[in-house]
């Protein structure tokens, strides 16, 4: 499928999400720079992955695109819809086009509602179709995600983790969205169930032409499902490339360290000895370092790295790297 067959591509430009700030009685409150200038675009029908460690801002990016946290600055657009700027009723109406699958299949389903009701909820709230049509749509969705329609009457606690994530997918699909944001959709599941859910997601993408924004910390999962991948560190993208390039020819030292940390069953001893090991924790997102944010943990950092912030530059074929030294 060609990239332009549907024109609802996701465009994110210089997205910033800062928490806190302002001033209180006791002086200025600290500002947490959770997402600090992130730009990328996802062609329709493709899967864009964001990887990074805890606190890198990947989930906040997802929530900002879903308009579930306040956007401090920047532009988010889905096709012709400027979803970053909509408010009130306009935003509620536009939500039909973008839906989310959450990480935790246990806390993302309302324990007091029946499965059918949970999947139908967005349709009810947006008043899409008649009651009978909605009910039929829910039955169809259950089949589509591999559940039996008669399971609609069950409550969430009667489903297994994998089945619950299928329910989450069915709910996200109910409004027939263009974009589905997947916030670590399989990281709470067993490995065998992960494969089931990933295959289901891939099949749904083929059948429905969905665009995925896939957030994960699991490089294996990202390699399996994503077309293009961005690596985030402390609120910024440090490297971005298509799947093959990123895994075969990583440039940024942080990406190299991440890839080296993936456990393997057939690595030899030499590889293990040469692997880049990172020490310490990322700096605080409150007091950001000047210069490169990775400099404090970088194995190849020079003096100038902590003075000059490296731009995210295109090194050819859309392979973008933010590093002064490579």
């Amino acid at each position, binding site marked *: 499928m060609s990239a332009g067959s549907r024109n609802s591509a996701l465009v994110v430009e210089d997205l910033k999400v800062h928490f806190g700030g302002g001033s209180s009685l006791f002086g200025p409150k600290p500002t947490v720079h959770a997402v600090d200038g992130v730009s990328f675009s996802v062609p329709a029908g493709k899967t864009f992955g964001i990887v990074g460690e805890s606190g890198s801002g990947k989930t906040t990016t997802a929530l900002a695109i879903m308009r579930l946290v306040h956007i401090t600055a920047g532009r988010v657009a889905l096709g012709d819809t400027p979803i970053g700027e909509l408010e009130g009723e306009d935003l509620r109406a536009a939500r039909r086009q*973008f*839906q989310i699958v*959450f990480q935790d299949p246990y806390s993302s389903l309302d324990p007091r509602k029946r499965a059918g009701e949970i999947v139908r909820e*967005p349709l009810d709230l947006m008043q899409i179709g008649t009651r009978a049509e909605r009910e039929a749509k829910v039955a169809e969705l259950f089949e589509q995600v*591999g*559940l039996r329609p008669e399971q609609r*009457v069950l409550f969430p606690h*009667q489903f297994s983790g994998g089945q619950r994530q299928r329910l989450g997918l069915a709910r996200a699909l109910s409004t027939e969205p263009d974009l589905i944001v997947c916030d670590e959709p399989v990281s709470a599941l067993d490995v*065998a169930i992960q494969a089931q859910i990933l295959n*289901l997601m891939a099949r749904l993408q083929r059948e429905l032409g969905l665009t995925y924004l896939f957030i994960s910390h699991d490089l294996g999962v990202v390699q399996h499902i994503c077309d293009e991948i961005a690596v985030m560190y402390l609120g910024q993208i440090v490297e971005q490339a298509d799947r093959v390039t990123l895994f075969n020819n990583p440039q940024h030292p942080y990406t190299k360290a991440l890839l080296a940390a993936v456990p393997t069953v057939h690595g030899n001893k030499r590889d293990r000895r040469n692997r880049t090991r990172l020490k310490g924790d990322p700096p605080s997102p409150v007091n950001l370092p000047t210069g490169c944010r990775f400099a404090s943990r970088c194995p190849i950092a020079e003096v100038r790295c902590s003075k000059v912030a490296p731009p995210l530059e295109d090194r050819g074929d859309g392979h973008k790297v933010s590093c002064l030294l490579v």
Partner: protein
Amino acid sequence: MAELNSPDDLPAVKATHPAREMAVMFFRNYNAVFGLILLIAILLFTFVGPYIHTVDPFEMVWAPFARPGEEGFLFGTDYLGRDILSAMMAGGRVSMAIGLAAALISLIIGVTVGAFAGYYGGWIEELLMRFTEFFQVLPTLLFSMVIVALFGASLLTVTLAIGVVSWTAVARVTRSEFLRIREMEYVAAARSGSAKDGYLIFRVILPNALPPIIVQANLMVGSAILFEAALSFLGLSDPNVMSWGQVIGSNREYILDAGYAVAIPGFAIFLTVLAISLIGDGLNDALNPKLRQR
């Protein structure tokens, strides 16, 4: 590779409502069941009893201070020669009605204040919680006495006075539950399904916040009955309406001559509050999934 997407085969699709499981838990708790049986017995006594024992509680039927069992008066007669058994039946109805109504009033005020404070946060929360604290620091008995003294002692003012001084606990419980639940992913999911604030508050968060609120409300019925008794004992209740507290209050001067006239309604209040507390504990255990695993 074949796609593994067949659902695990369940033997039968049978929906078990969470409330049903809680009911099962409740009835396994012997203390709670004892409390429930006790409460049903008290309700039967006060609501069905008057149809069997048809003596007007205000009518002087015998000489004052007949001992319990004397002359066919099961609980004896009071200082005006009125039948205490009838007074117990009539008074129980009023006591329980006041308890229930006062708990309902404090539930409505408390849930509203707590829900809005917990959901919106920010200055709305600040304002509402400072308002709540204002009511919390007032001495409750004194404050309700002032209300009754100002507006006159009637069933309505007594009920309102009890409700108005006891809603703060509900507000705090509701707020804390809202603070916890509003961060849940299913709330974010409903929001991304374009839910409005009203839907999120009343259809998503409140149903999930109910268990501790139910427990609190239940215990409040008990404390409202005690409160009413305290007000009646101090003479701040409608003299034309019989209640357990009223029976104690009117006989208190004769406590040395006719202790039973004070002890019997006192014991009835004790039993009722005990039954309600046992039910409350049972509800708490049944509704709290963390305790349920024990």
